[in-house]
């Protein structure tokens, strides 16, 4: 499109905008000034003495006096200059003229009193963050404080003539580091052992052991990642199949401590369906505004999660608050888009088409002509490139914020902000890179510093009003999940069933030895012979069955030569086209007590007739401990009718008479059999481990209690949770049934141990909940509450009181 045509369509859009309403400064005037005046009259440019940086400068005018008379466009020389065709007078002096529609807007704007956004100015931001990584030189250690973080912070404090925060006592450290790294209160035995340990290495050892707890670590950090990647087990979009979970992939990635660069690449350029949900976003039915298409969601999500860039302004128009422009947001969106993407400004077409591009061309660019999967791979590579310091700085800053209560750059999603210590930020980013993108190592690095192991800052109102200075970690409020986990730990009230469709724990080959497989390979009648099933044959296989009694966990395996799509109760659960990868399935959220159906659309591939077969086997673990097997066998049915799939749902079922008994393949292909034998037992054993650790709050759907405690609806990315306790939360804490039931259960259990006297009981509770012994005064108060022989009620009230104490609710 020619420039002329482009500006024409722009001016039409503007004119339509202006219709009757007052001029909108930021959406209508700013772009005009940017386009025609900015080059010479904004920032440090003041041609003719005129600066348009802010309203006052503009009204002050230039060397020849005022250019604008507020309220009177006819008397404003700016308008005359814009309209003039005299080469000596006209503005802008060169280039194209300001279109009539825009001049009309300028006039209207002047007539309306030169309305200007409070605080807005056309100038370069005072700080522009560097892109490239930098390895800062470490200052010399002072007082034997060798840790790199402390060397940087000690220097920082010395320069600012500030005192070091005081070191933290062992017990408080133990509580903090447990909650920070695995999200749980320290068990009293663990605490006692730690306190008794005289080794100078004991803190480092504790940190190491906590981070070595793969499951504890994964199930705590799951909350952080679910928030940052807006993944959840229920929420908007799932109902119409417009959203997919990445839960299983995420859980496994955390358990195996997947390097963060690989982790990111698998999210941006998904190698399979399990991590696709992140880039596919949330698709609502019907029309959505241009700023909320799935392509734009992609641009916003990738920018926010990995770069700490807020692309929400720039997805609608050039941002007024940072450097990002509409074209850049669309360029990012176009990397994802599989259709030509028209650029819309404030929901109105501009007539321009987006060109796939990423935000920092100085380190490379995607090939706009490449196919979408290739473009995504290129973006993933650029994002995780060693040259992209923004990427590593963003994540280490988030980790620092989680551990220390406040970011080095703050807020954590505004990475364009100046850090309070660039050396510290760059040092941590370097650590991440040098550790092979090992997030646990970065956490260990932070946790082993004296900075982390010092007392929490005492904060007063308006503490940061005059700029932040480091004065120790800041106390954090427990997240909803930490609070609920802590209550469940104290009361043993955790549910037995989790909602997250994840395969808990790790694959254990040993445990697999006790598993005997029950399934058989099945197909339709074409497998009966004499020739093999035809290439491209597509059939439907199913089993309808009833599950009696409550379910605790369901784990399954499936593979199909060549392709399968699995539906449980008519909802799409999994699909794959590589029979050599045996898929493990978390079906706890799909199967239910009562009637169930498992339906598989299976497809044979190849050029001519070739062997085809399906294998499925699931273990249903009941709440009462019993186990049931559902596996492919002669009780399954098949039909050649294949229904349509819409919004993740299976279309109308085939007629009853179309279903025939499935054919059990008598001589399955040898490599099939080997595959199943070697891998399936260990996978299935994961579901039947008798002693699973407590189900964590992060693994269940959000409930009323967690929602009131700040667990967000994950329809948007949320990177920080509220730090304040609100009144509605407090009402729920004071009388909500969920919490009351948990405490009652705990009280019952505790008071059943009737050998315990009131003093011992209070001491035990204080140790577990607060990681310390009660003082004599506190003991006296608890005695008073409990009476000589603690009743269930008394114990319940004491439990409640302890759980409501700021000391309990805060991680300090």
């Amino acid at each position: 499109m020619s420039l002329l045509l482009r500006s024409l369509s722009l001016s039409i859009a503007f004119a339509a905008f202006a219709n009757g309403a007052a001029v909108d400064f930021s959406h209508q005037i700013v772009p005009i000034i940017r386009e025609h005046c900015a080059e010479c009259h904004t920032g440090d440019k003041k041609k003719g003495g005129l600066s348009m940086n802010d309203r006052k400068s503009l009204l002050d005018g230039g060397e020849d006096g005022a250019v604008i008379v507020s309220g009177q466009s006819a008397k404003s020389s700016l308008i005359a200059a814009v309209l003039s065709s005299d080469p000596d007078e006209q503005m802008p002096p060169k280039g194209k003229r300001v279109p009539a529609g825009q001049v009309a807007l300028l006039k209207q704007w002047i007539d309306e009193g030169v309305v200007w956004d409070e605080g807005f100015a056309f100038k370069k931001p005072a700080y522009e963050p560097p892109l490239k990584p930098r390895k800062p030189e470490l200052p010399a250690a002072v007082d034997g404080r060798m840790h790199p973080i402390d060397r940087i912070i000690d220097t920082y404090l010395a320069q600012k003539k500030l005192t070091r925060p005081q070191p933290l006592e062992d017990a408080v450290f133990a509580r903090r580091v447990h909650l920070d790294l695995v999200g749980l209160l320290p068990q009293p035995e663990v605490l006692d052992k730690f306190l008794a340990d005289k080794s100078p290495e004991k803190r480092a050892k504790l940190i190491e052991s906590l981070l070595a707890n793969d499951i504890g670590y994964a199930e705590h950090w799951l909350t952080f990642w679910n928030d940052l990647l807006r993944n959840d087990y229920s929420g908007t979009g799932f109902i119409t199949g417009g959203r997919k979970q990445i839960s299983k992939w995420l859980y496994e990635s955390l358990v195996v401590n997947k390097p963060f660069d690989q982790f990111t690449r698998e999210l941006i350029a998904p190698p399979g369906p399990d991590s696709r949900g992140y880039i596919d976003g949330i698709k609502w039915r019907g029309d959505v505004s241009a700023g909320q298409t799935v392509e734009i969601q992609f641009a916003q999500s990738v920018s926010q999660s990995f770069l700490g860039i807020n692309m929400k302004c720039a997805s609608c128009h050039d941002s007024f608050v940072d450097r990002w422009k509409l074209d850049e947001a669309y360029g990012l969106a176009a990397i994802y888009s599989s259709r030509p993407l028209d650029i819309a400004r404030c929901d109105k077409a501009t007539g321009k088409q987006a060109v796939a591009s990423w935000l920092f061309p100085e380190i490379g660019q995607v090939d706009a002509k490449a196919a979408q999967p290739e473009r995504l791979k290129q973006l993933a590579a650029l994002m995780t490139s060693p040259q992209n310091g923004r990427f590593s700085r963003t994540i280490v800053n988030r980790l620092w914020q989680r551990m220390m209560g406040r970011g080095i750059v703050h807020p954590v999603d505004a990475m364009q902000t100046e850090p309070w210590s660039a050396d510290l930020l760059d040092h941590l980013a370097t650590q991440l890179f040098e550790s092979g993108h090992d997030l646990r190592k970065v956490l260990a690095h932070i946790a082993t510093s004296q900075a982390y192991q010092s007392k929490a800052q005492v904060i007063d109102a308006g503490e940061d009003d005059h700029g932040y200075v480091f004065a120790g970690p800041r106390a954090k409020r427990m997240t909803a999940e930490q609070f609920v986990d802590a209550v469940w730990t104290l009361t043993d009230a955790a549910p037995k069933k989790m909602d997250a469709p994840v395969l808990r724990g790790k694959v254990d080959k040993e445990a697999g030895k006790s598993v005997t497989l029950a399934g058989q390979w099945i197909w339709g009648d074409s497998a009966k012979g004499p020739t093999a099933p035809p290439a491209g044959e597509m059939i439907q296989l199913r089993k309808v069955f009833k599950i009696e009694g409550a379910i605790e966990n369901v784990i399954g395996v499936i593979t199909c030569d060549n392709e399968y799509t699995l539906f449980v109760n008519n909802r799409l659960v999994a699909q794959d086209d590589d029979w050599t990868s045996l898929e493990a399935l978390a079906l706890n959220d799909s199967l239910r007590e009562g009637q169930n159906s498992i339906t598989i659309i299976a497809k044979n591939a190849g050029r001519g007739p070739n062997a085809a077969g399906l294998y499925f086997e699931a273990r249903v673990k009941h709440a009462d401990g019993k186990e049931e097997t559902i596996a492919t066998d002669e009780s399954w049915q098949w039909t050649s009718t294949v229904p349509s799939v819409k919004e993740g749902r299976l279309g109308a079922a085939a007629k009853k008479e179309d279903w025939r008994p499935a054919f059990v393949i008598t001589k399955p292909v040898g490599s099939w059999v080997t595959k199943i034998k070697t891998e399936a037992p260990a996978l299935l054993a994961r579901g039947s481990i008798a002693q699973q650790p407590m189900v964590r709050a992060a693994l269940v759907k959000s409930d009323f209690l967690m929602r009131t405690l700040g667990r967000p609806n994950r329809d948007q990315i949320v990177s920080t949770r509220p730090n304040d306790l609100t009144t509605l939360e407090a009402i729920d804490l004071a009388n909500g049934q969920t919490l009351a039931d948990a405490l009652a259960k705990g009280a019952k259990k505790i008071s059943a141990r009737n050998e315990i006297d009131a003093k011992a009981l209070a001491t035990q509770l204080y140790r577990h909940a607060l990681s310390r012994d009660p003082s004599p005064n506190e003991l006296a108060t608890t005695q008073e509450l409990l009476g000589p022989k603690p009743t269930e009620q008394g114990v319940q009230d004491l439990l409640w009181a302890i759980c409501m104490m700021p000391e309990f609710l805060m991680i300090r």
Partner: protein
Amino acid sequence: MDFTHPTQPEYIVRREFLKKLAAAGTAAWMTGEPQAIWAKTGEKVVQPKPKADACILLWMAGGMAAPDTFDPKGYLPFEKGLEVKRMLSTFPAIDTAVDGVKICQGLENIAKVMDRATLVRSAVQPDLGSILHSRHQYHWHTGYVPPQTVACPHIGAWMAKVLGPRNPVMPAFINIGQRLEGVGESEELKAFTTAGFFGSEYGPMNLPFPEEAAQSVRPPKGMDPGRFASRDKFFRKLVDQSPHRDYMSDYQQQSMLRSLDNAYRLLSSKEREAFDVTLEPKESYAKYDTGRFGRGCLLARRLIEAGARFVEVTTEYVPFLYWDTHKDGHETVAGLHKEIDMPISQLVRDLEAKGLLDRTLIVIASEFSRDAIIEGKPGSNASDQATFKVEKIEEAKHYGLHRHFTGGTSVVMFGGGVKKGFLYGQTADERPLVAVKNPIPVEDLHATIMTAMGISPKTQFEIESRPFYVTIDGKGKAVTDLFA
């Protein structure tokens, strides 16, 4: 029962509250006075003088068909072989207390109080290409069409945030009648039943079952008031004795405890009786006892008397139930008429009798209307969602308005500064039944409600360095013709 007692004007209650606050530190609930907020345009947004102090939204969830309620059109009774295209209304029109204004048969009691009402027949909604309850409900409740880049606050949360509670003990935003768990599309409902980025301090207190509302402000089940008080006493003592006290500033400590204080105050206050509908005199209770919605209206009245700021009462959204008539429309709506008619008229009469109607704005609204043929707007390509797509009515289940219609919807308002016995806007007499006079889009309807409550439509808060307005881009315009 009258908590905001006439001999004790509100400012005294406020003063007492302020005294308590002085002890408890700054309260997030303390935003009682309308605050001038700087708009993006650099001009000071002047908050209009409120015409109402409280608002009750009576939500007809699922799409209330205007031609079967407040905007009767050509009526044809059920008969076999009736052509759907000839049928506009399935209820005949009846007279109301206002000359020349008719509404549908079945709403006889409401008809009698229409002389206190402003009836808008020209509310319109966008088509959105697919007429989904969840999206239109989200739009109506927040002013923004989903999806959005930030979690948008519900209009009740806006009132809670900008105006604060009327009575500091009472939650400002109360939501009655909607289950958020165990019903279809519950995630979509949760998405707008929230204070969004304002934070849960301004979020709804959800009371899905009016008859169980008392439970949510009572000490937990099985705990008598004595034990509740003693638990609180021990709690305070333990907090005082905790060495943790030394590691927190007064500010930190108090901001942690303030909310617990507020909660304790409500849970042990006299105001909590307002939540208990069984305390209502029998005769009065009976008038409201038509179902959950009716009892919800009673609860709303009691809560407004006790000082709640915004109360929503819904007939409840459950896909394909209540107003969401995809079949059996006539039959279902006849039942709904029975459920809403008496309670709504009684709510108006009771508030009037108690002298509260003038300062309480009641709004009856729905996410869109319905029609027997047209889905969305005329000419829309939205897919038709009626269960039975017939041209001639053969069975009773075909008789009703089974399509979602966004071209003309009725909204009824009572009290709080709106005209009495006033009709505004008009829809066509023949299909398409679109608003042909004075159409009011969602943002203007919201601007009207907000202006009546003393909130400028340009009111904005900053989130992620961007301004976020109570009406989209601050552009909603109040329909001042509706104001008395």
